[in-house]
Each structure stands twice: as C-alpha cells, then as structure tokens.
C-alpha cells in the first residue's frame, strides 16, 4: 500500500524538515505577535490605574489581537495536519494544562468585547483582572509545557498505536518546568511592556517602560539559568544508529539513548545555531539597557528578537526530537517518524507557500491602519469602539 501511494515531487525528508521549520515559524509568529497581547493583558491592571488608562491600554491591542491569536490556532491545526502524532500525544497528555490554556484563551474575545458594554466599576474590574489572569495562566502553562518537552514526557504506544500516558497535570509542575514557566511569563511581560511603552503616552508609557526593563533583565537571567541547567543538569535524548529519514511514520522502530548534554549536540555540530540563544539573551538585555522613554521602537524590536530567539532555542535544542518520551525513549516522536504522509505534507506546503505571504501582507496592513500611539486624551473623550 505504501508503494502505491502518490508522492509529491519534493523528497520526504526535505518536506519533513520544511514542516519542522514551519511549525517553528508558526510558534514564533504566535509568541512575537500574540505574545505582546498576552503580556499587555498581564500588565493591564498593574500598569493602568484609572478607567481611561485601562481603556488606553486595551485599545493598543483590541483591533489586532484576534488575528494574532490565529497563529496559535493554526499552530494546532498545522500540527494536526502535518504532525498528527505530536498533536494527539501532546493535547491528550497535557489534558488539564490544555484545558487551562483553553479557558484563558476563551476569556479574551468576550473580555475585550463585553467589558465596556456596562459602565459598572465591578464589571470592568472583573474583565480586566480576567484578561490579566488569562494572560498569566496561558503564558505560564506554555512555558511549563515547553520545559517538559526538554525533560521528556511519560508516554508510550501499544501495538495498535494507542497512546498510554503515565502522568498527570502535577507531574508537569517539576522544578525545571516551573522555571520555564517563569521564563515564559517574564519574556511575554517584557514584550507587552515594550509594546505599551511604544504605543501609549503619559503615565502608562512610563510605567510600562519600567516594567519592560525589569522583566527584560529578569528574563535574560532566568534564560541563562535554564540554559546552564539544560547543559549541566538534564539528560538530553539522542538517536542511536541509522534512522531512515524517508521511511513511513512509525515511531516504534528506532533506538534512543539519554545522555547529559545531549541537548547541546546540535550547537557542537553547527556552531552558528548558537545565534538563537545569543539573540535571546542579547535582545532581553537590550530591552533592559534602553532608558525609559528612549528609542521605544528599538526596544520593542529587541524584545521581539529576544522572544523569537528563546522559542527557537527550544526547537533547535530538541531537534530532531519533537516530543521525547521519558518512559519509552525509543517511542519518542521525531521529525523523521511522526509526520503526515508525503502527499499531505506536499499539498499543505503548497497551500502555505501561497497563503502565508498573503497573511503576512494583510497582517501588516491591519497593523498599519492602527499605527501611531493611542493617546490618553483621545481615549478619555469618547466611548469604546465595540
């Protein structure tokens, strides 16, 4: 049956590599674009005090956050289509964590739209804190999940490929997972702070600028600490023997070993890859170094580079692993044995090659329409746009 299958003109191993990169691009797109929405939401009740300030903050993200969120939805959809085993194991294995992410994302569309519909103080406080909590919970859970990818997750398959998962939600909350969660919160709070410092004026811009600098230096320190931990304290995973890069996606047929420092192997083989963690640290430090009120666009750009670098570091360290199994290392999901068929990868690549540039173009257009600062004086004069 395999041999009768229609194949595309691009070799299977190349397609798998491209889809690994595309998954990374989607996650980075999500972290860079929706990341500042999540960070802004976290900072909302802390940086904004008066009602008008709160609305000023919200209006920096209200017109565009919905489009940004699709990067995450598409990350889920693309892993369903291109990496179905990864989608199945991660979403069912992280059941409660995913449910928490879901609730924190669900609260956003209603929180933005409903908040200004009633002129009631408690009503508005409720939605502001709901958005902030949602931003915090989503950020920390994403970080915890990524940290646990590096540790390995307790799953395996039976003979008909049914997943077994030998862990629960609290198993994810181990020390390294929590440090990763904290890193994620700091990173996105820095990003939201840099965004607000650029997009607002007055007291909000000042407070946001201080928050961004503080979170920037903390994120750089925690990221460096996590890097040291990965190098010195965590056993990475490595493939053993020859693994076919073009075989059918059967994750049961390979050898895997665990070894200290294995997650650094890719940087030894290809030193230029060290650019990713370096940009992560450098970007965050630059955010911290730029004085409040100066070079706000540069600070936001540095923040975006830091976010991209930190997310990319995780993916590059894991490669070729997507999801290592701590209980059945030989059943770990890798780029070479967890993908969709060659035809599906090819068709979806064609669609993505056509549609992604269009998406980037109108995302830029939509952000361009809303360019410029949201000024407190303007906001205070009029009602909400919703």
């Amino acid at each position, binding site marked *: *049956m395999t041999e*009768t*299958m229609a194949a595309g003109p691009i070799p299977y191993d190349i397609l798998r590599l491209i889809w690994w990169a595309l998954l990374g691009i989607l996650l980075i797109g999500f972290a860079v674009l929706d990341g500042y929405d999540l960070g802004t939401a976290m900072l909302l009740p802390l940086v904004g005090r008066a009602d008008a300030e709160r609305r000023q903050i919200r*209006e920096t993200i*209200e*017109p*565009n956050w*919905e*489009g940004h*969120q*699709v990067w995450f*939805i*598409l990350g*889920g*959809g*693309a892993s*369903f*289509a291109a990496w*179905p*085993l990864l*989608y*199945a*194991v991660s*979403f*069912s294995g992280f*059941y*409660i964590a995913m*449910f928490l992410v*879901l*609730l924190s*994302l*669900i609260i*956003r569309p*209603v929180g933005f*739209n*409903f908040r200004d*519909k009633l002129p009631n103080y408690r009503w508005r406080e409720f939605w502001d804190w709901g958005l902030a909590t949602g931003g915090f919970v989503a950020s920390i859970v994403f970080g915890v999940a990524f940290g646990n990818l590096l540790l390995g997750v307790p799953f395996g398959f039976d*003979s008909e*490929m049914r*997943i*077994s998962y030998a862990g*629960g939600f609290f198993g994810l909350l181990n020390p390294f997972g929590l440090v990763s969660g904290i890193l994620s919160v700091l990173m996105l709070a820095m990003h939201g702070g840099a965004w607000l410092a650029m997009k607002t004026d007055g007291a909000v811009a000042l407070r946001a600028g201080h928050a961004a600098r503080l979170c920037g230096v903390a994120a750089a320190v925690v990221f460096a600490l996590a890097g040291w931990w990965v190098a010195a304290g965590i056993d990475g995973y490595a493939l053993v023997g020859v693994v076919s890069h073009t075989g*059918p*996606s*059967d994750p049961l047929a390979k050898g895997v070993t665990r070894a200290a420092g294995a997650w650094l192997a890719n940087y030894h083989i290809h030193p230029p890859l060290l650019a990713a963690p370096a940009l992560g640290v450098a970007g965050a430090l630059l955010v911290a170094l730029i004085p409040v009120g100066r070079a706000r666009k540069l600070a936001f750009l540095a923040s975006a580079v830091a976010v991209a670098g930190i997310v990319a570091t995780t993916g590059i360290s894991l490669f070729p692993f997507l999801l290592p199994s701590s209980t059945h290392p030989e059943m770990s999901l890798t780029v070479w044995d967890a993908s*969709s*068929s060659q*035809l*599906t990868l090819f068709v*979806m690549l064609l*669609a993505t090659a056509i*549609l992604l540039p269009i*998406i980037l173009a*109108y*995302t830029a257009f*939509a952000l361009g*329409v*809303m360019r410029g600062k949201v000024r407190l004086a303007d906001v205070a004069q009029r009602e909400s*746009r*919703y």
Partner: protein
Amino acid sequence: MIDPTVVELSRLQFALTALYHFLFVPLTLGLSLLLAIMESVYVMTRRPIWREMTQFWGILFGINFAMGVATGITMEFQFGTNWAYYSQYVGDIFGAPLALEGLMAFFLEASFVGLFFFGWDRLPRLGHLAVTWLVAIGSNLSALWILIANGWMQNPVGGQFNAATMRMELTSFYDLVFNPVAQAKVVHTVSAGYVTGSIFVLAISAYYLLRGRHVAIAKRSLTVAASFGLASALSVVVLGDESGYLETVNQKLKLAAMEAMWETKPAPASLTLFGLPDLATHTTRYAIEIPWVLGLIATRSLDTPVEGIAPLIAEGRKHIEDGLVAYRALLALRQNPNDAASRATLTKGTGDLGYALLLRRYTANVLDATPAQIDAAANDLIPDVPVLFWGFRVMAGLGFYFIALFATAFFLASTRRLDRRWFLRVALLSLPLPWIAAELGWVVAEYGRQPWAVEGILPTFLGASSVSVGAVLASIAGFVMFYSALAVTDVALMSRAIRRGPPPPRKAGPA
C-alpha cells in the same frame, strides 16, 4: 484499554460544546453577509442611515462573534485532548482542511474584524467596505473548510489505510475537496446561517416596528432580511434534499433511520409524513404515507427501491465478517511487513476493516468474536431511530415554514404593508426557530452517523483518548460552569443592546 465511561463522557462533552458553539456560528455567517450588503448600499447611495444600520447590527454581530470565537477554540483543541486516537488515525486527511481553515479563513476574518470596529474613522469608505466583505468572506470560507472536514467523516473519499503507520492516509486531495457530500453540506449549512441571520434581523426589526421605534432603520432592515432570507430559505431546502439523495449512496442506514423504514419499500417508495416509530416491534404505528415521494427524493427514479433497516443490518453483518479477514491480515502484516499474501488480503478487504473494529466494544481480541457478539455489533449500526425521525421532521418542517415567512415578509415589504401587526408578531415569535432547526440539523447529521466517527472506517468509541474519567469530568464541569455564565452574559448584553437600539445619528465628519 478503552474505558467506556471516558468514551461516553467525551461524547457528551463534544456534543455539548459543539451544539453550544453552533448557536453562534449560523448567526455569524448570516449577519456578516447582511452587514456587507447594508454597507454596500451605504457606499452606493451615500445615505448615512445605511451606515447607522451597519453599525447597529455590527454591535450585535460583535457580541455574537466574540462568543463564536471563544467557543470555536474549544472545538479545535478537543480533537486532540479527547479524541487522540481519532486524531492520529485520520489526522493525515482530516487535519488538512482544518489547517486550511486556519490559513484561508480564520486569519482573514480575525485580522479584519478588528478593523470593522476600529477602522470607521481610519479607512476610506471603500476601504471599510472591503474590510466588512473580507470578514464575511472569511466566515464563509471557514464554513467551507470545516464542512469539507465533516463531509469526509460522512463520506470518506480520497484516502487509504496504511498498515505501516496504522492510519488512514491521503491519496487524493482533489477527491477530499470535491467530495459531493461535503459540497452539498457547505451550501446547505451556509444557507441555514443566512436564514438565521435574516430571521434575527427580521424579528428584531419587527420588535421595533411593533413599538414604533427606530422605524426608518427597522423597515429597511426588514426589507433586506426578507429578500436575502427568501433566497436563502429556498437554498436550504433544495440543498437539504441533495444531502438526502447523497445519503442513499453511502449512509443508507442514516436515511432509513430518518424515515423509520424498518423494511425495504418497493419502488417507488412512499414517504412517511408522520408516525410513531416503535423500537420494540420494529414498526412505525399510525403512519401517514405519501406514495412515491421518498423514492423520488432518495433515488431520483421510479424503479429503485429504498432499502430498509433490517436488510441493511444483514449487509452490515456480512461487512463485519469480511472485515475480520482483513483484520487478521493486518495483524500478520504488523508482525511481518514483508508478508505479501497478507498485504494482498488487506488491500482487498480494506473497505471492511472498520467493521471488524466495531467488535472491539465487545472483545479485546476481535478474531475470537462469537456469533452473538457479531450480531450485537451489527445491531449497533442502527442509529437512534426516534431522535432522527423526529429531529428530521421538525427541521424540515421549519425549513418550509421559513420559506413561507420570508415570502410573506417579501410580499408585504414590496407592497409597502409592513405595518401589519399580526405579521410583525409572527416574525418576532419566530426568533428562536432557526436555532432549533440548525441544532436539529447537527443532531441528524452527527448523531445519525453513529456508531461511526468516520463512516465505515473508525467507530466513535475507538477514537477516544486514553485519559482518566476524573480529567474529563473536571473539564465537563468547567465547560458547563463557564459556558453557562457566558450564555447569561451574552443574552443580557444582546437584550440590552437591542432595547437601547441604534444610537442617535452621529454628526457628519470625523467623530
């Protein structure tokens, strides 16, 4: 091992969250297009009242859209969280339209919906009109791709089972997209959305006219809704009929259950208009029959019989027995991938493999299934007859009612008699009906597909994740609480916005 409690709870959660999500989807589909039509009139005539209409219905659209997005994220997550085996078994095919929905539709509607609200003063007239149309097109494209995915669950074409990866894999993207079941479903469902949007506008406009408020806006809105609604209601019924015809090709049992047709009817089959399906005796009591009609609808001919439940079950039993042969070959092939004889047997019987999996409900080792277990599995093929019989009749009856309602509205609007209070009252009272029809449509389509997740390929109970009962109970409890609170809020905000009505006209120039 599959825990039956997890399966039942996961089905309950999926049904609850999908039915809830589908309260908001049809209105988004219909209202987005109505907004685009109203704003087009504004741009063409430059009369500010059409802009006020667009903005007023836009407020209600916004509340509903937020709920649709919020509850839609759940659906995208849920395949992975609760139906992991389903996801890995068919993700190679089913995942593609879902990802395309994200690429082609979600990005479009989500990127422009913000500009719809925030762009009035920042975009030129034509620019804002383009934004509104792009939101409407995005919503409709979303329906297209999700129904291509759903159409594949009803009529799985363009794929093949691969023993090496233990899953279904794509063989023809063209067949997947141009699946006739999917195409009929798209137009039927999208039109149902337009009907929902039109009745929403019709009923609320009628409310204003009854109270003598916002008369100018209400009359214009009612006229737009009447003409758009009439075309859509006709389209729903015609394409619903097409879906029924296609079910005779691959979902004969669903059709037989919808008609409570226990035995094969000689050609041309009569249509049972009403009756009481009796599960104990497998008969339909007090049936009122219309000769010939079912034969015409279901087979488009006068000489083809429509098969009943009993002979279809006998056929199903045969499929299970053939499926066991394919299943034995699959096990041999998993042991030795080079076993050419087993490969040939599996290739030949691959269409029946799913039927053997039905036995997994009764025995872990399906090859040792007893004749009694095979009988039980064959009987599982019968969907829930009374629910389908009545669900279908209420939905179809409402479909014809909507045609009459819109035709009346259209007649009254075009003869300038929109002050008829009896009609306005009927229009207002019709407000909940399109939601009832839409939800029943979902029930007939999805509950009627049981016991299959993917017709003939994968039984629903096999698709569930290996998660704990406690975890699923926790998420159901969370959804019920969260969604109930949202429902109360949604209805309260909608009612408040409707009671307040359109804001007084803004002065010319930038606000």
